[in-house]
């Protein structure tokens, strides 16, 4: 996985742990965690694939654009690998 990643813009229904406000946003991998069971399966007691989990750091500018309170501040979130694509 490249250091620079983008969160996929898909909008599947169900128990999804990828916040909508980060979809389509690009950030830098802060650290790699996991693997962890895919919560989108675990929530329904389905056999869950294991996914690496990435802590991705976004700038507030990237997330909120001109509306950012302080563009250089950052937001870190944990995103599962199947939600990320290389940039």
């Amino acid at each position, binding site marked *: 996985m490249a250091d620079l990643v983008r969160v996929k813009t898909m909008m599947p229904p169900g128990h999804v742990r990828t916040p909508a406000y980060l979809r389509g946003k690009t950030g830098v991998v802060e650290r790699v965690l996991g693997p962890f069971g895919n919560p989108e399966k675990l929530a329904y007691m389905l056999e869950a694939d294991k996914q690496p989990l990435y802590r991705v750091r976004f700038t507030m500018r990237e997330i909120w654009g001109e509306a950012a309170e302080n563009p250089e501040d950052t937001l*870190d979130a944990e995103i599962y690998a199947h939600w990320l694509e290389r940039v």
Partner: protein
Amino acid sequence: MPHDHHDHHDHLSPSGHPFRDDNDTPLSYWQRMEIAVRELMIEKGHVSPEEIALQIDAMDARNPANGAAVVARAWTDAEFRTRLLEDASEASREMGFDIGPMRLIAVENTADVHNLIVCTLCSCYPRNLLGLPPDWYKTRAYRSRAVIEPRAVLREFGLDLADDVQLRVHDSTADMRYIVLPARPEGTDGMDEAALAALVTRDSMIGTGLPRVP
């Protein structure tokens, strides 16, 4: 239905608080489901009421003092601080805290960086170390504003962050939980670990506050 009963809603208790409504509203679907599953598990012998009560006691016994002890150790022991930042779960266990399977990450405040913890999706919180989260942590207002306008939120908590301090917000979206390692306050050089721990507030470990100053 006649409304001839005395209505408390407009009145205050002798101590000045509004009366709280009795919780005799109908059960929600999930409340009914919880009771049904619990009773079935007891009937079938998988768990006893005593075990459930003990588990509730164990969770209620966890409180911010546990985290404060961890923070104070990190302030006084540089090697422990390094271990805490590498793996906060193991460092907490090393101090004797039973945090179960919780995966904890400690994020450190410095002169240039301030950290703030939120869970925008629900109410993820390092309960197994700090106990239950404050009610405001679970509100939609905090959960949304902490990522949209975190500096405004911090000002409401009495913390006016300087422009040259970088704010890092951490959204607990998945398997990890977070604790802020606040910066050790000035003027605490001679203090021992126990005295230092008394300075560490719950909010300073969420990032909505700073430790007390002696």
